[in-house]
Structures are given as structure tokens and as C-alpha cells.
């Protein structure tokens, strides 16, 4: 029998029994005097419905007022960055997509852009592939903001908003499924282009969605914008001004709600965003209300971008022409699901030994990436999503680091919560839109 801080174990006839004591919680509690002390320490999370996943907040309360707040993270750490170092560069897409699970296509695109920059093929990525990336990212931005609206609505008491938000998000996930084969964790954007072309069926679905969404947006506004409870819970709550945002590294809608129109799509464009027509919505209050308005407006801008991207889709290849980088086979739906196209299988199995070798080497070993390091930043729904990728010249990443906006933005929570009411911790935390999968990686 061993003793540990976290769980004691003992043998019984049924097997081993663990008694979980709750980590260092008793030490934290013993530091306070519950009878004479006005302050109590409340542990919010890691399992709490309104902390967006496994986020733990330690709050020191004086009555209803939060005197100190500390966030504890790491409960969802899965070592994705370390894992990447033991897979080849293409396989990396399947890992990074699982970081921030609400914006998988941003994770993939940032990774693909970094690998392409390392390879020096940024300019060779085809126009169609880039347009598809923009299209997918903007749809993803809408779905991510919808989840934000849905969960925040629920946390502040508007349960029906949750149902509506997830209902419309389902449309987008349907579109994603038609295009990539999966609702989440797509591994669709690959270094060099995208995994497969967009089917016509999906274009029709997106057009339908573009017609539907403005009506739904109006519905949300009718529901929330004039709602006295919603206004009470969001206006002048969890205020963070531009200075505080910059000091704490907060980017994305939170920074824009404070009044600084910093959007990497405009300020440091990538994927041809400089050629699209769209606005960067801002607000000046820097409170939860402002963030709500900014996100709603961003959904509208994304709809504009999706429409423009659709109009630009001209037939063409979706992968770079370089056969030493491009995936050897086009994917196709067969009787047993998605796989290499039958034509390709017939060719490598029946006609060309060299093609078979080429396919085998490229898939098992992967391509080599010249040594060096790059940093690529893109505007994800939560702010600057940066990828720092280092290659040593081999077929696997030497190091990939994600600058996750959820991770960086969460540092601002004490600044938003301290001195406010405990109920506003929820509103403030929700307005940061943290996704713990991305935060902990």
C-alpha cells in the first residue's frame, strides 16, 4: 500500500480501491480560518458546467465579491506538441486539428502555412486550395462563434440560445462532413493544399446556409440584444481596456471590443485576405456586451467572406504540383468509405511499380523539410493563433509550438474578475471564449 497526496489505495477482495482526497485542496483550505476570517476560498472547477471544459478557478471571496482569482490549467494536456515530433510532417495535420476542437480548420491551416513556408512553396499553393481554405476557415469562424454564443447564453441564463446556437452550428458541421468526411478533427488542410476537392453538393449546401443564416442572426438579436437580463449581465462586466489587453497579450474579439481594430487578416494578411472585402467590427466599451456585439458582427463579415470565396472558386488543382510533396493519391468515396481512389490503386498495383514505390515512400517516410524555423500567425476566432515550427532537415518536425489564443487570453481572467461579483466571473470567463483543448494542448 502506498500513500500519495492525491489518492490512497488499499487492497480489498474486490481488487484495488482508491480513495481520492482532492489533491492539495485541504492545504489550501487549512490556510484560512473559516470562522474568524471573512474570506473563503472557493474552488470552481475543474468539473464545472460553466468553465468551458476542465478549467479550475481558485477564488478568494469576501461575501459575493471576488478578491483574488487564480486559474489552474493543464487538466487537458495531451502532449500534442511532443507527439508531433515522432510523426512525419503530413501526419502532423491529424494532431494539430485536435488542439482547439472548436476551430480545427484554423489549427490545420496555421500548421500547413508554417510547413509551406519552411518548404518555400508558399507561392506554389494553388489558388483554388487557398480559396477553399478561406471558405472553410470562415465557415469555421461562424461555427465557433455560434458555440460561444450558445454556451455563453446558457451560462447567463438564456437556455434557448444554447439550443439555437448548436442547431445552426449543425448546418455548418454538415457542410464540413460533406466536404471533409468528418464533422470535427478534419485533417483536411494539408501542407501543400487540401486533402480533396469540394463537391458540388457542398456548394449548394453552403448557398442554402448563406440564405438561412442572416434570418437566424436576426433571431438571436431579437432574443438577446433587448433582453434586460442579458444587458444587466453583460454591460460594464469584466471590462478590459486596450492597455490591459496588450500587456496581457489578449488578441481577437476581446481586443477589438476594447477598440483596437487589430485583425491579422487585415494587418498581416495571409491566404489572400487582402483581396477580399470585409470590415473589422469593433466596439469601445471593452466589456462582455461589446464582445457579444463584436462576435455577432464578425459572423456577418464571415458570411460576406464565404460568399466571395464561393464566387471565386474556379476549377483547378487543390494540391501543389510537386510530386515529392503532394499526397500521391486523390481520395474518393468507395463502398467501404473514404479512401484512395480506385484508379490510383489500379495504377500502383497493376501498372507502375515506380508509382507504388513512390506512394509507399511518401506515405510511410514522408517528405524532407529543409532546416530552419518559421513563425506564422493567423486570426483564429479567439485571436492570434501562431505556429513556431522548427525543422532539422528530416521527415519529422523537430519542434512545433502553438501560440494558442485560449492559453494566452486566459491570463486576463484575474484582471477581469478581481473586485467584481462571483457571478461575473462566469460572464467574464465566457467572454474570453477559452477552449481548454487548445489551451492545454
Amino acid at each position, binding site marked *: 500500500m502506498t500513500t500519495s*497526496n492525491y489518492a490512497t489505495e488499499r487492497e480489498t477482495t474486490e481488487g484495488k480501491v482508491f480513495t481520492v482526497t482532492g489533491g*492539495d485542496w485541504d492545504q489550501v483550505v487549512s490556510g484560512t480560518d473559516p470562522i474568524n476570517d471573512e474570506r473563503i476560498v472557493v474552488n470552481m472547477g475543474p468539473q464545472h458546467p460553466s468553465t468551458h471544459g476542465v478549467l479550475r478557478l481558485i477564488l478568494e471571496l469576501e461575501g459575493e465579491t471576488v478578491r483574488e482569482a487564480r486559474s489552474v*490549467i*493543464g487538466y487537458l*494536456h495531451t*502532449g500534442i*506538441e*511532443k*507527439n508531433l515530433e*515522432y510523426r512525419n510532417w503530413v501526419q502532423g495535420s491529424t494532431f494539430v486539428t485536435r488542439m482547439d476542437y472548436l476551430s480545427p480548420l484554423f489549427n490545420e491551416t496555421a500548421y500547413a502555412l508554417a510547413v509551406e*513556408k*519552411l518548404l*518555400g512553396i508558399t507561392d506554389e499553393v494553388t489558388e483554388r486550395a487557398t480559396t477553399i481554405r478561406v471558405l472553410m476557415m470562415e465557415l469555421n469562424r461562424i461555427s465557433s462563434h455560434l458555440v460561444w454564443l450558445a454556451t455563453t447564453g446558457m451560462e447567463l441564463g438564456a437556455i434557448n440560445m444554447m439550443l439555437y446556437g448548436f442547431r445552426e452550428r449543425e448546418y455548418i458541421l454538415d457542410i464540413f462532413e460533406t466536404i471533409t468526411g468528418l464533422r470535427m478533427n478534419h485533417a483536411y488542410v494539408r501542407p501543400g493544399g487540401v486533402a480533396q476537392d469540394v463537391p458540388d453538393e457542398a456548394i449548394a449546401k453552403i448557398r442554402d446556409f448563406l440564405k438561412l443564416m442572416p434570418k437566424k442572426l436576426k433571431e438571436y438579436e431579437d432574443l438577446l440584444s433587448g433582453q434586460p437580463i442579458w444587458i444587466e449581465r453583460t454591460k460594464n462586466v469584466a471590462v478590459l481596456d486596450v492597455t490591459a489587453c*496588450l*500587456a*496581457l*497579450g*489578449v*488578441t481577437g474579439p476581446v481586443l477589438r471590443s476594447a477598440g*483596437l481594430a*487589430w485583425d491579422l487578416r487585415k*494587418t*498581416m494578411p495571409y491566404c489572400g485576405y487582402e483581396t477580399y472585402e470585409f470590415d473589422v467590427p469593433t466596439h469601445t466599451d471593452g466589456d462582455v456586451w461589446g464582445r457579444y456585439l463584436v462576435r455577432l458582427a464578425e459572423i456577418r463579415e464571415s458570411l460576406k467572406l464565404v460568399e466571395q470565396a464561393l464566387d471565386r472558386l474556379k476549377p483547378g488543382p487543390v494540391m501543389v504540383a510537386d510530386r*515529392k510533396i503532394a499526397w500521391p493519391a486523390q481520395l474518393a468515396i468507395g463502398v467501404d468509405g473514404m479512401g484512395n481512389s480506385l484508379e490510383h490503386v489500379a495504377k500502383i498495383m497493376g501498372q507502375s511499380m*515506380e508509382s507504388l*514505390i*513512390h506512394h509507399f*515512400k*511518401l506515405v*510511410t*517516410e514522408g517528405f*524532407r523539410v529543409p*532546416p*530552419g*524555423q*518559421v*513563425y506564422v*500567425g493567423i486570426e483564429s476566432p479567439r485571436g*492570434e493563433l*501562431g505556429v*513556431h515550427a*522548427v525543422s*532539422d*532537415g*528530416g*521527415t519529422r518536425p*523537430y*519542434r512545433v*509550438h502553438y*501560440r494558442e489564443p485560449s*492559453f*494566452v487570453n*486566459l*491570463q486576463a481572467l484575474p484582471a477581469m474578475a478581481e473586485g467584481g461579483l462571483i457571478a461575473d466571473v462566469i460572464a467574464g470567463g465566457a467572454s474570453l471564449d477559452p477552449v481548454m483543448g487548445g489551451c*492545454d*494542448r
Partner: protein
Amino acid sequence: MTAPNDRNNDGGVPVPTTPAGASSTAPAEYPPASPAGRGMFGNQGSGDVSGFGGLVRQRKPIEEASRPYGGYFDEVRDALEEAYPAFGDAIEKVVVDRGELTLHVRPERIAEVCQVLRDDLALRFELCSSVSGVDYLGADERRLHVVYQLTSMTYRRRVRLEAAVSVEDPHLPSVTGVYPTADWQEREAYDMFGVVFDGHPSLTRILMPDDWEGHPQRKDYPLGGVPVEYKGAEIPPPDRRRSYQ
């Protein structure tokens, strides 16, 4: 139904011998790992004929860039040189690669350099986008590199700072005084690489549990295999698995 051995005798079809571990309770045997951790194929040369694997992996030494660097890089360097008298002492190397500017900074000077980069009117790197670590095991004596990505919102520029420390003396000043946002990111670099940021308000682990030992992102951190509940077998750790290196 005939036993396999009978069939072997009758039809002359060869039957492979029973693998070790299949008939007894003996643990399944694995081939020994090949020398130098090159995976279980143990192929030292290149056994392939496609031309892919025959390439020799070379690590080019990092080369100092020569003036003019191009773009805004010259302006950044000139402005920094003018605003920061100890430039010659603090900046070890200037590298321009793939359209990105990297300043290799002496570790003890990193906070000063950040301060100048943030405050000088001609530089104005207001945002510290990212702080991360890289372990150059075997390639650099000071193998732990801390990499800072700074962004100037005023001029829309980026610059990368890189400071290298050794495992024996992994200390460098914290930049949290200049960029409070570096707080968690420095904690992550400490957690994953064991770099100690002097002057950090509370340098504790952030992603790994508090009682964790070692720094998992270091290249010499031992990887674990996965035990399988089958005759004591174990899936070997990723760097020992069968793979093309």
C-alpha cells in the same frame, strides 16, 4: 479436420513454426533495438531504391546574415543599434531566413533588449506574441533555446529573439516585467524544458502536474512504451518503433 502437421505431410505445404510465446506463457520476444536508436529495422545505409532515403541529412550551421537584409530588417537593426548602446555586446548574431529576422541575444541581456524593443519610438514592439523553447540536443552546447516572437502593431512588423542557455546553467532573466503576457508562456517553457526565468513572479509548472519530475519536451527525456495486457508484451516507445528514420 486434419491437424496442420498432417496437412504438411500430405500436401507438402510448408507450415511456419509456432512463434515463441504463442504456445507457452513465455513473454513474446522482440528483436533487440538497433544501435543508436535508429528504430527496429536497423538499416544503417539506405536500403531503398526510390532516391528518397538516400539523401544525407545535413544540418546547415546558422549563418549570420549580411547587410542589407532587405525589407524593414535593416531599419529595425539600425534603430535598435541607435537606441541600445550595448548592442554589440548583447546581440550575438543576426539571422535572416525565409523572410524572417532573428536576433540571437545573450541570455542575460534578453529583458533589456525587450525593454528597448518595446519602448523605443522607432521600434515599438508592443506585443509579445509567443515565448517557446527548443532543445537543440547535440547541435549546440547551449542547447536550450528560448524563442520570443515580438509583434509591432504600430509598424506591423515581427521580429524573433533567440536566447540560448545550457542545461547546467539554464538561467536567464524573465521578461514578465516588460511583457506581462510572458507569464504563462515562461512557465510553460520552464515546465517543458527546465529553463529558469529569474525574476518571474511564480515560476511553477503549468501543464504538467506539480509533482512531475523532469522536463518532457527535452530531446533526451525518456519516452515510455505502452504495456499491453498480453503475455507481458509492451508496445515500444515511439523512438524505438519500427519506422523509417
